[in-house]
């Protein structure tokens, strides 16, 4: 089993968050930044780290990334088990430290009646004074995605009962590194005190969370900011549906290459030898009708086959030679 000492240099202690009870009080205006659903202790902690990193850039190699992981709560055999999905970690992120943060209160066992001996009638039964607070154990298991087992036990820690309710941090770096090495990026944590949990535990702002301090080796690559923050094509029409996968383009517009529809050998003006689509009978155009105004809207050109067919029977009536003025014609004849 793994009994990680509570290092005094665990990040929580360094971030003087230990003992923080009420995240709401701490958030202040940052609460708006986080949105309504995220005003819990992990948000407070991350904002604290953001302020620290913004004041003083981290030393090279001291880690340029901190990832937080909120749990999903499940009840298994009447015990609260917290599951952490660590799959959002990037391969380029080298884990430096991983810490497990949890809120614990002293658990005094309920004073309970002891069946007193019936030596004499109506002797009052004494209540046993409550014993020492029960010891809790932290059990960590890791499992790969979608396996039904409870997972491999990665570590267990005995917890000294706290004198009062407070947040604590435990270093779980070696467990997380071993689980990642084995490709098991689903971690479960169970606070076990040996007693059954009274009532179904509900998600609370006191839910535990994991922080992973890492050094992203790819962050100095060109365009690293786009890898994690560019989530859709900025030129996409309208707002992206938040549900779509990042970088998906639901843009209805279809890009078309503009290529010429047919060979440009003839010097016919496009659209002049076509019949308008609605004309049912073939009418012969006279010259002045063909040019009602200097700018004609070009009509879509028919395919080459029907153009040749149409071209034959229309050639006599409306084949268009370009007309030049007399002077140009004389020059041409001379040449």
């Amino acid at each position, binding site marked *: 089993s793994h009994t990680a000492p509570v290092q005094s240099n665990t990040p929580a202690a360094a971030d003087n968050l230990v003992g923080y009870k009420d995240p709401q009080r701490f958030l202040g205006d940052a609460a708006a930044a986080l949105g309504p659903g995220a005003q819990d202790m992990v948000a407070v902690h*991350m904002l604290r780290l953001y302020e620290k990193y913004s004041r003083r850039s981290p030393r090279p190699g001291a880690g340029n990334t901190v990832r937080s992981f909120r749990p999903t709560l499940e009840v298994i055999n009447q015990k609260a088990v917290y599951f952490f999905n660590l799959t959002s970690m990037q391969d380029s992120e080298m884990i430096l430290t991983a810490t497990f943060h949890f809120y614990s209160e002293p658990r005094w066992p309920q004073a309970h009646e002891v069946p007193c001996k019936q030596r004499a009638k109506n002797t009052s039964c004494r209540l046993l004074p409550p014993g020492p607070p029960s010891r809790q154990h932290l059990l960590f298991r890791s499992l790969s995605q979608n396996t039904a087992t409870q997972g491999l036990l990665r570590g267990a820690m005995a917890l000294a009962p706290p004198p009062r309710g407070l947040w604590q941090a435990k270093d779980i770096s070696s467990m997380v590194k071993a689980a990642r090495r084995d490709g098991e990026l689903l971690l479960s944590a169970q606070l076990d005190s040996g007693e059954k949990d009274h009532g179904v535990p509900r998600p609370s702002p006191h839910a535990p969370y994991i922080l992973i301090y890492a050094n*992203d080796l790819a962050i100095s690559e060109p365009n690293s*900011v786009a890898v994690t923050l560019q989530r859709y094509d900025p030129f996409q029409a309208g707002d992206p549906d938040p549900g779509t996968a990042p970088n998906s383009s639901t843009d209805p517009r279809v890009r078309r290459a503009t290529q010429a529809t047919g060979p440009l050998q003839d010097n016919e003006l496009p659209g002049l030898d076509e019949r308008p689509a609605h004309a049912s009978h073939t009418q012969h155009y006279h010259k002045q009708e063909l040019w009602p105004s200097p700018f004609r809207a070009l009509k879509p050109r028919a395919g080459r086959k029907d153009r040749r067919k149409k071209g034959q029977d229309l050639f006599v009536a409306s084949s268009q030679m370009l007309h030049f003025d007399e002077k140009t014609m004389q020059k041409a004849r001379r040449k």
Partner: protein
Amino acid sequence: QWDEPRVCSRRYLKVDFADIGWNEWIISPKSFDAYYCAGACEFPMPKIVRPSNHATIQSIVRAVGIVPGIPEPCCVPDKMNSLGVLFLDENRNVVLKVYPNMSVETCACR
């Protein structure tokens, strides 16, 4: 912007993540001073544009005009600063990353 100096120098630019559509997942900062570099790197270049030796040679060759088509050296960022960004990843977990080279401290001709 009009009374900006002609020579290569740092110009003010504030980037608001809402303008580029990233504000949905970026918690903090909402905007930051990124700056940019612009201006001439023509011969003779003043010391303030901190030209590299190559840029000095290139601007002389261009000024002399022996080789046609040689462009002026470019005015680019020289010293840059990193920026810590707090954002939500695809699983809506809070992530902090410190990105290098996000804002311009000084410009130079290269």
